[in-house]
């Protein structure tokens, strides 16, 4: 959502974050939970808090 608001392409964002587009796609689809460092980089790029980008679900407590 943040990416579309800022009109930045998945390719461009993944290049800025130093990850592949497939990885960025997996993060956006919730298939992969990024490291704290990458999450902080994303939050810094979008100038928002990490919890605005990622939210915990109840099932995450069991992981």
């Amino acid at each position, binding site marked *: 959502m943040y990416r*579309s608001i800022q*009109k930045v*392409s*998945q*390719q461009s964002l993944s290049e800025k974050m*130093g*990850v*592949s*587009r*497939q*990885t960025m*796609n*997996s993060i*956006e*689809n919730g298939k*992969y939970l*990024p*490291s704290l460092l*990458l999450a902080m980089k994303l939050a810094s790029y979008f100038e928002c808090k990490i919890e605005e980008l990622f939210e915990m679900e109840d099932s995450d407590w069991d992981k």
Partner: protein
Amino acid sequence: MFLFPNKYKRISGWIFLLSVLFGIYYLFFTDMESMASEILTIKVPALLHDEVFSAAEGIWIENNLFDEILTLIIVISGLLYGFSKEKIEDEYISSMRNRSLAVSVYINYAVLLLATITIYGLPFLQVMMLQLFSILVLFNLIFTLRLRKHYNTTLDDEE
């Protein structure tokens, strides 16, 4: 974790695949002695050796290097292939590599446990010898399949 440069990935992958296939052929479909050329029989220094199978002069024993060379090629190419960087090496790829390694260790030792209680004598030693390579083969196979799935992920449209 230290990883080798990406330039080694493709070439080591092919060498690994071909050497493993050749190793299987060598082990199961040939008279192993017939493949070993006499040119490769030389005296080598041995830290430990079995006097039944090799005549020794001090630390020097006569040995055919064919299987040693094949072992070195399989192990070195397998390690290079599994531990070379991807073109874009990121944390998801690292995570996939770690998980593939863990799964291959589990499978390899599950097979060893099974072999321990079902296979005895010389055949058990052969299973143990195969396990030296099977962990590398399993790891590379699982990692490659995961990478393929990752790269073939249908990407969402832009914007």
